[in-house]
């Protein structure tokens, strides 16, 4: 097991087989974002108006609410990974751990709030 140095403790153990997971998930969510955000922006740009009633009616459709929920999952997953790399590149020690914790709260909390809002619009519909 070596002499207790960082290198000595890991030498001979081989790869943890997790090295490419972050990279692959970043690509998968990138493809998801490419499709979903383009759909979102093009649809939004072509909306006849942006008043509240139009928005509620639009988001109440299952073919809008479902892609919007998928968009929230894909976007917040992707941004969690991107900001993680930023934090790991520029901070260390306790600051890094604190910021990574904050990032997880933001990413999971933001996605949950967004999904709840879409679900509420979709389920309560025009009565809102």
């Amino acid at each position, binding site marked *: 097991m070596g002499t207790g140095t960082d290198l000595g403790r890991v030498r001979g153990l081989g790869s943890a087989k997790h090295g490419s997971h972050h990279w692959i998930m970043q*690509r998968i969510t*990138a493809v998801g974002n*490419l499709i979903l*955000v*383009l759909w979102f*922006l093009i649809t939004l*740009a*072509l*909306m*006849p108006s*942006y008043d*509240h009633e139009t*928005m*509620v009616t639009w*988001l109440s459709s299952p073919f809008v609410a479902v892609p*919007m929920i998928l968009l*929230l999952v894909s*976007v*917040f997953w992707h*941004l969690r990974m*991107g*900001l993680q790399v*930023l934090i790991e590149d520029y901070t*260390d*020690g306790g600051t890094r751990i604190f910021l990574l914790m904050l990032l997880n709260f*933001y990413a999971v909390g*933001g996605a949950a*709030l*967004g999904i*709840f*809002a*879409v679900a*509420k*619009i979709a389920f309560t519909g025009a009565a*809102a």
Partner: protein
Amino acid sequence: MANSQIGAKARPLSPHLSIWKWGPAMLVSILHRATGDGMAIVGGIVLIWWLYAISAGTEAYATFVSCATSIPGYIVLVGLSWAFFQHMASGLRHFVLDVGAGYELDTNNRWAAFLPFLGLILTGAFWAIIFFGRG
């Protein structure tokens, strides 16, 4: 931990940003991170605010709309749309580079130099549709 950090900080760093001649690939790489992380924070908050405001009712939505259609609001929204198209363009470049293509110096430089223009063109097209494209 503290000791090893002090030791690490005292070591000379390999010079990086200061010694390289600027090239388009560096600009696109920096823009990719800046637009991505900008959207991750500002874009994420605006998206959630917008959805929450719609779900909360007409009054909350009116507050969102009045903020979004103010001058600072438009600056943020145009900035976010530009960030998306720029990040999308350099992200597509990453997919090409991921399969091992596009590393020849001329090809690499030409595409990298073109992408910032593509980002601006797509942003302009997006806002042109919003303001002029709907009859």
